[in-house]
């Protein structure tokens, strides 16, 4: 059985993620899944744009009064960097260096938690000043869009941690490599969505 084969850096395939049919299926299936996720976020973005700054008569909250770019900038840097570190992990996977994979994935997770902590702080701050989920259509659509992204981050973190734990003893094989590959793909997707949130929600919010 393919999984039982012991690989060395010399025999390890160039593209373990598509080395067998199962891998090819996962690879394609996951890309398609991300296509659907894109439509999902597109719907959230469209709704947010339609409801931005809309609220009950006399609402004082606007994107300008609410958002603070320095905090969001730090969050963006954390998440972008975490995407880079997950690329490093994939780089080591290609070279059949399992320790490298685990190390860089761990760093990715740490950065992800940093992002999450700041996001929770940000949300807490908004709620504290009265911008709660039920405050207005604006607040509902803001929290739903950014919160759905945040939920993706949580799921991504849980996923990667689980992978690192389950494979700590198993090491690298075609079977496990494919799991890392899809997880890192997911992480990149989360990163790309954030770039759009940063631009459309925060930058455009502060500018106009």
């Amino acid at each position, binding site marked *: *059985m393919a*999984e039982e084969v012991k690989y060395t850096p010399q025999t390890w395939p160039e593209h373990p993620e598509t080395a067998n*049919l199962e891998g*090819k*299926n996962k690879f*394609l*299936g996951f890309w*398609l*899944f991300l*296509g*659907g*996720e894109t*439509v*999902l976020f597109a*719907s*959230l973005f469209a*709704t947010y744009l*339609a*409801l931005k700054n*809309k*609220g*009950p008569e006399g*609402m004082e909250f606007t994107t300008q009064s609410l958002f603070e770019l320095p905090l969001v900038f730090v969050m963006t840097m954390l998440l972008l960097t975490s995407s880079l570190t997950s690329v490093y992990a994939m780089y080591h996977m290609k070279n059949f260096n399992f320790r490298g994979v685990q190390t860089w994935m761990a760093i990715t997770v740490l950065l992800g938690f940093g992002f999450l902590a700041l996001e929770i702080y940000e949300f807490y701050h908004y709620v504290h000043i009265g911008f709660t*989920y*039920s405050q*207005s*259509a*604006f*607040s*509902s*659509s803001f929290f*739903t869009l950014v919160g759905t992204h945040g939920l993706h981050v949580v799921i991504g973190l849980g*996923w990667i941690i*689980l*992978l690192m734990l*389950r494979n700590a003893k*198993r090491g690298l094989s075609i*079977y496990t490599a494919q*799991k890392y590959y899809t997880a890192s793909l997911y992480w990149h997707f989360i990163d790309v969505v954030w770039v759009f949130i940063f631009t459309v929600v925060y930058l455009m919010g502060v500018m106009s």
Partner: protein
Amino acid sequence: MSAIAQKKGFGSALWDWLTTVDHKKIAILYLASGGFFFVVGGIEAMLIRIQLAVPDNSFLSAGLYNEILTMHGTTMIFLAAMPILFGYMNAVVPLQIGARDVAFPFLNSLGFWLFFFGGIFLNLSWFMGGAPDAGWTSYASLSLYSPGHGIDFYALGLQISGAGTYIAGINFLVTIINMRAPGMTYMRMPLFTWTTFVASALILFAFPPLTIGLFFLIFDRMFGANFFDHTMGGNTIIWEHLFWIFGHPEVYILILPAFGIFSEIFAIFSRKRLFGYSAMVFATVLIGFLGFMVWAHHMFTVGLGPTANAIFAVATMAIAVPTGVKIFNWLLTIWGGSIKVTTPMLYALGFIPSFVAGGVTGVMQAAAPLDYQLHDSYFIVAHFHYVIVGGVVLAILAGLHLYWPLMFNTMLSEKLGKITFWFFFLGFHATFFIQHFLGLMGMPRRVYTFIEGQGWDLFNFISSMGAILMAIGVIVLVINIVMTTVKNVPVGNDPWKDGRTLEWAIPQPVPFYNFKRTPLVRGLDTFWIEKQEGNKEGMSYAEPLSDIHMPNNSFIPFVMSLGLFIAAFGALYNGEKAWAVPVLVIGLGITLASMATRSLKDDHGYHIHKEDLMDHKGGNY
């Protein structure tokens, strides 16, 4: 490990169905549960027609009527038509492309159980304080203010079953792209595979907007959000957009596989190659593509403005072109063929005029100014029943006869089948043809009764009588199924004698591993080619006999779906019952824990060894 041929007791048989990942068994699960919901939706339809048979009727109260009407539409579309079509896709597509299974057998099972639990959840509303009552479209301006939990059942139930549909869509896309046998190029794919492929792509892009719309509805009703509440800055039109961005592709998700089934039938029973194969493929893809650009034709009267209305009107009319191409290709397939009028063929022949009538009214409605008159009248009801019953349901019934031998190795009675056809077909036209005129005479849709003497009495009565004919047809069908199952006469290979594609070449009953050796596809209608060349086996092979890799059965999909089912009750009673939040957490916990179990355990499947395959002929049902 020899998993071949073992006798099973009831307990282990049940366990087998709960854990199966075999596409052929999942097909039967889809067919059975879809069939069950079809009967439920049919009973609801009968209640509607009884209420409307005479003016000023008090058989149903206004509120109950709304619930039954809503559940009829929702059940038929989400829980009957789509799952039954998924049943056929599961039964046929892997065989048709020469694959041993779908790409993700585990997800295939998960998709089914999600649909199943979602459907059960939705229908439990009847016993837990009342069903949804805002129409299958559940416009937010109505549904936000609907008292009780009906709408919550709708939103949560569709969310769960929709997740199942989404998974199934991805599964079929990957299966068709990656798992085709050698020689099965895209332009040699049978039409049913092609239409499954395009319908799956539509599912991939159409279901996320519905997911989001439903979440908004759930959050507005259950968690204090304000997406649709205009006093809080919300906008109810957002629901309509999201719903129809899903909703229009959805009708093509239904009709494309139906087109596929009829394309197979016309070719098989005209004993001729499908006319204009490449034009058919092109038309299918084009319909799928255009299907995403026309959603606002459901919203002409909302007030989007003349520019938007004009654009969407033209785009909508454009869809009639590829649809017309298909109709002509079918006609030219029959033309000069050596026709056998079997039951499936009878349905196919009945489909053409019925569906054309529905298409014509569709184009009429596409003219925005005219639609101001037609919108929300019985004309619309007539239109969509002509396309859905005259298209999708006829295809489902035709497919039932056509694919029954493939799924069960027995043949439904042709005689009873034809009796069903005539009752159903005549009943269908009697019910819905006349509704065009009711619409033109001004009868609005979704009314629970009407006042005597507006000229609507007779037509409504005729319409209700037609519904009874359809019901008789369905009862005969049920008798047919029961009798066939009791008699249990095996039919063996190529039951229709004129099969053209790989699914008919396989030995009956289909072995659980499908193909002993991966077949080599030598052209469009490859089985036909082999038969013409006198190949007794009906197949050429692409590989020597070797071990076959099989996936393990799994109970996890069932548990994962059950978790969401439990969690949905928590969400529904949030803020009302003390146990709501714990139940929500426990349900989600079950789902997450089963996901983690799936991830933590290595599941490599098993192998059937060459030696065991050698002398194995049929399946082990």
